[in-house]
């Protein structure tokens, strides 16, 4: 079965990202396909490559990235939600005249159309948020 996952909350503050990750991992283990993970609202903060949690804590960003790299997951960050929160990739950083970028390379920036497409293409869209 083809799953889409929507993550609406950031890491460490709410359990949503953890729940979504563990759901995605379990779905892949059962042989299901994850069509896309879409990060919206504060969920865009799950994509910061500068995240440095204490050594004894889970690294939510790297954990998502590792799962995506292993299973070739399409992880999309909403561009408007990201820009509001100072999250940008190299291209956006240059375009906006900023001096830094912070989106992890396992994530890509795109628009809400990608969420709509996931809703259309997937058998199920599972929403995780606050």
């Amino acid at each position, binding site marked *: 079965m083809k799953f889409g996952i929507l993550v609406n909350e950031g890491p460490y503050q709410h359990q949503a990202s953890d*729940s979504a990750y*563990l759901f995605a991992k*379990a*779905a892949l*283990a*059962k042989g*299901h396909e994850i069509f896309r993970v879409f990060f919206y609202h504060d969920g865009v903060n799950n994509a910061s490559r500068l995240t440095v949690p204490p050594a004894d804590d889970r690294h939510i960003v790297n954990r998502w990235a590792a799962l995506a790299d292993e299973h070739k997951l399409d992880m999309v960050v909403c561009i408007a939600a990201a820009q509001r929160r100072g999250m940008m990739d190299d291209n956006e950083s240059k375009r906006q005249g900023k001096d830094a970028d912070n989106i992890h390379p396992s994530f890509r920036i795109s628009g809400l159309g990608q969420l709509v497409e996931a809703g259309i293409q997937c058998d*199920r869209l*599972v929403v995780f948020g606050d």
Partner: protein
Amino acid sequence: MLHIVNKSPTERNSVESCLAHAKKGSKVLLIEDAVYAATKGGAAEARVRSAMADVTIYALQPDLAARGMADRVIDGVNLVDYGGFVDLVAEQANCQSWL
């Protein structure tokens, strides 16, 4: 239809809203802080027990265990792990998160 609720009944009314709207035969999965609704002596115990006449209640076992509530689950509540969560989503035609 699978309803997914993630907030404690003492924090929000999403458990109550969900149970009030869920049609007979629906399945309700309690995750994150909503697992408190599945506990004996919890604020929603009576409500959940009466709802079990019409809907099937599930609770995410790892979230119960994380809160030290694994041995206080109301009789008749079905426990699932994340794999069971995936199965519930796959088996129902659609799912709704009560955020």
